[in-house]
């Protein structure tokens, strides 16, 4: 199949999957979930083919529709987008397996809508990954917000509706005001919105206004959750855990930072970005530390993970703001590594909830004895997110350190070192409590039991985190290959 055909397939396959899921409906749950798995596998194969056959010389744009002259919906494959597409599609398979285990164990209602919206969200994520200009990206970005709303509100309890409203309000408000303003500003200034190697803004906007435009983008892309506009992310944790796992560790939040990366590389151009980004470096650095500190205060596991995501996303924003090829490389790697690490953690938190009906750090003492493999996987994910070898998460942290050292930003070096230790500070207690604290029936300060009997952990909820944790180690080894793949696109001449 040609490049254009593959790109269309990547968009159409999840759409078709969603349609089929809707058609099968609640009558045949097994068939419905088989459709999901088949769709996910087919999408992963499509993306793999795209990555394997990618050649920057022959990659041509594919115009889907022209709205007004100069403003068209266009698809175009490029390395960073393919990396994002690869992560999202690959993890969709694992997440679908996990969803089946989780949703059945929880006897969740409205599963057809759940799986269909999931597929739609993947289609939107693919459109973001493959978008050929900022307008296309913007449209797909909005669609992603809208199709994930039913997923976030899934339980339809009062709390879920409130959280989902917050989710929608933040994401729509940021994208409709600052993001669109920045878009129009860019269009007016540069006359185009095409993603162009080297950027389109150099010399088109005065140097004094450039940081303002960057600010509009940085806060306009609300999915990147830069503080203080991060509130939607913890609020969206009311969603079922598989949703939190794929959307708030992989597709939605990564779509945000991916958008920032694309804007830095193909709209601003790296030299322009580096000149405009100084203030953003410190905002993002502050965001890393503040979010890590807040994470330490959270007793609810998912809230802890949500703030951890805010901190880790800020590292990508930080990489973007540094605007050097090395830093951008770190940003792309962080996008990949954090996705795998954090999805492991979410899988772990969800599995704990399935098996023990416990959601809080203070309740999980001693559960490690029931599920050692799960806790060890969780530990692997935690160490990867913290950035320790031999886990994939080390590379982005290390490259960021190198980039910061290259700019002689001592404070930033300290901040990055501190962020690793703080990450351990809020993630390791989960492992330690689960493995080493006494279970609460032996603990005199324990809360009264809520009456739930612990249920066995379904295999489908245990395997995915084990696989993703192993993946974190494999990614540690695969990092140089990923870097080599994206190096031409970001102008990284000598591989680190």
């Amino acid at each position, binding site marked *: 199949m040609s490049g254009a055909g593959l790109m269309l397939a990547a968009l159409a396959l999840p759409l078709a999957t969603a349609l089929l899921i809707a058609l099968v409906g609640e009558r045949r749950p097994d068939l419905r979930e088989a459709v999901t798995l088949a769709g996910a596998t087919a999408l992963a194969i499509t993306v793999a083919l795209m990555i394997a056959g990618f050649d920057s010389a022959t990659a041509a744009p594919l115009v889907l529709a022209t709205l007004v002259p100069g403003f068209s919906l266009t698809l175009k494959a490029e390395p960073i987008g393919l990396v994002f597409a690869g992560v999202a599609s690959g993890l969709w398979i694992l997440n679908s397996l996990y969803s089946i285990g989780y949703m059945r164990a929880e006897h969740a209602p409205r599963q057809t809508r759940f799986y269909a919206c999931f597929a739609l969200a993947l289609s939107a994520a693919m459109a973001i990954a493959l978008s050929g200009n900022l307008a296309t990206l913007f449209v797909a970005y909005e669609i992603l917000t809208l199709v994930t709303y039913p997923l976030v509100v899934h339980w339809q309890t009062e709390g879920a509706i409130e959280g989902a409203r917050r989710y929608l*309000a*933040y994401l*729509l*408000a940021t994208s*409709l*005001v600052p993001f*669109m*303003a920045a878009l*129009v*500003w860019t269009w*007016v*200034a540069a006359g185009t919105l095409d993603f162009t190697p080297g950027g389109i803004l150099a010399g088109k906007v005065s140097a004094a206004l450039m940081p303002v435009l960057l600010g509009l983008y940085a806060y306009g892309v609300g999915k990147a959750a830069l*503080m*203080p*506009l*991060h*509130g939607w992310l913890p609020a969206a944790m009311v969603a079922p855990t598989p949703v939190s796992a794929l959307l708030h560790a992989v597709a939605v939040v990564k779509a945000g930072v991916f958008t920032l990366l694309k804007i830095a590389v193909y709209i601003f151009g790296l030299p322009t970005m580096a000149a405009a980004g100084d203030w953003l470096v410190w905002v993002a650095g502050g965001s890393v530390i*503040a979010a890590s*500190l*807040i*994470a*330490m*205060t959270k007793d609810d596991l998912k809230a802890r993970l949500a703030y951890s995501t805010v901190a880790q996303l800020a590292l990508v924003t930080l990489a973007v703001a540094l605007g050097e090829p090395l830093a951008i490389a770190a940003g792309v790697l962080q996008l990949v590594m954090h996705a795998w690490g954090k999805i492991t953690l979410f899988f772990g938190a969800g599995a704990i909830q399935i098996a023990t009906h416990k959601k809080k750090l203070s309740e999980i003492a001693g559960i490690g004895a029931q599920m050692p493999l799960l806790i060890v996987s969780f530990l692997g994910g935690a*160490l990867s997110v913290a950035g*320790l*070898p*031999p886990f994939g998460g*080390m*590379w982005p*942290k*290390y490259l960021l*350190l*190198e980039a*910061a*050292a290259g700019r002689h930003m001592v404070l930033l*070096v300290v901040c990055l*070192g501190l962020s*690793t*230790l*703080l990450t*351990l*500070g809020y993630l390791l207690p989960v492992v*330690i409590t689960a*493995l*080493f604290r006494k279970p609460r029936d032996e603990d005199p300060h324990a809360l009264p039991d809520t009456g739930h009997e612990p249920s066995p952990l379904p295999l489908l909820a245990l395997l995915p985190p084990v696989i993703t944790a192993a993946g974190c180690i494999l990614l*540690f*080894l695969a*990092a*140089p290959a990923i*870097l080599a793949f994206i190096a031409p696109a970001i102008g990284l001449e*000598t*591989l*680190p």
Partner: protein
Amino acid sequence: MTEMAHALLGGGLPPGWPLLLAGLIAFAVRSEVIGRLAGIAGLCASLALVPDLAAAANLLPLELALMVTFHLVVGIGILFAGQRPDRIAVAGGLIAGGAALAALAARTLLGFAIWTEVIALASAFIVMAGGTPRALSAGLAYLLLQVTAGVLLLIAAALGQMDAPVVLWLLFAAFCLKVAVPPVHGWLVAAYPAASPTGSLFLAAFATKVAVVSLGAALAGAEPLLWLGLVMAVGAAIPMLFEAHWRRALSWSLVSQLGVMVAGIGLGSPEAMQGVVLLAIGHILYSTLLFLAAGSLEIRDGKAPRGLRVLALLGALSIGLPGLAGYGGKALIGEALIHHHMAWADYVIVVVGALVFAAVGLRPLVERCTPAPGAPWISLREAAATALLVAGSLLVGLFGPLIAPAASVAWHAGPLIVQAIALSLACLTMVPAVRRRWPQWPDALDFLALPKPAWVTGAITGLTVFGEMLSRIGAVASALTAAIGRTGGRLLLATARGLTAGGLGDGVLWALALLTVALIVSFG
């Protein structure tokens, strides 16, 4: 080959990969037997690869000998673990051993940082697998300190220029943490005896030895290390003298002997550096023998089997008898001290060596290793492990000069006579009248593992307080940002409502209005 890929693989699979693989298998498969079989297979494969590795990485004979010694310890650990199920310790030992090989062969700071971190993680698991509350907290403190050291190393690697003062200080701090230089030595004394007897064998062999050898590569000849090392050697020998728990006494002696090595690194002359590696090898051999003896005693609840006396005697002799493993390295460092016009320091380390011989070798031998009538013999596994270690000890002791050319100076009359006097005096302490007056307490002088009452609990209490403080700051920051976010959101919504009288569809209109403003602004 890029730096990253090189740090990872060095042009192929990392050295020690069979051990790493075997460790992962032993960790994943819940079967003692399969774990040990995988370990044996990995050990043989890894050993077979050593000659290739030596040729490829251009290793010195001493480094090669150290690698072979690592293999020996892995084998001993697997042998010993056969007596009592200890799967996690074996898996951790295999991984730590493989990573130790890779760390030794690493030619970049980044590669070294990565592999030492793997050793640290595996070792923390070994400590925590001890299972007691004491082991858990000690393992946690171990992990925290090692990770801190690892972060410092990574920052140093990222900074790049190896001769910049900042980098040197970072390396200095990281290695001081990893080599247990006082005042951060307590983690070692807390962690090593807390692990299972099998775990202690592995712990004593890999992490600190890799760190001390690499410290030599990075900071040879740094004057402060000479003094730190001497302080360490003497300071750690004192609590060792009065410690009743054999493995804890051995841990103190480990710190003390690391001090001798650090002092040698501070000298930095070629003969001192050879002495450091030779002593590292010798120390691995004799401390493994003694940990083996202590472990055998412990798994039998303190009832000595027959034959244990031989084991302990051979271990004790390996500490300092010329011709066995421990003598050459110490004598070499001593000679280097004399050449540095610090003959007094030579006598200091000889005395410390004799004290180690008396306190962790002779004394337990005399007081604990006597079997009750009708006691069973030591197991075949223990006998085999002893035989292997003694063979290694003899090889290193007799053929030391072959792998460390400078070691021939240890065979002159001067050092031999001094050593003979020291050892004889040490034996005198075993005269009943003297020995009975030699005090001994459980947890002796544990307060020296700073801060009181025990370094680990102190550190954890401190960290908890620190964490709570951070949490408070976090709570305030959280409330603040939430308030700012809420206020901002309310302002935004209020503006929107004011403009459009509410509703989502109206929000779009409102945005379009703002857009118009933006357009006008940018055209202006």
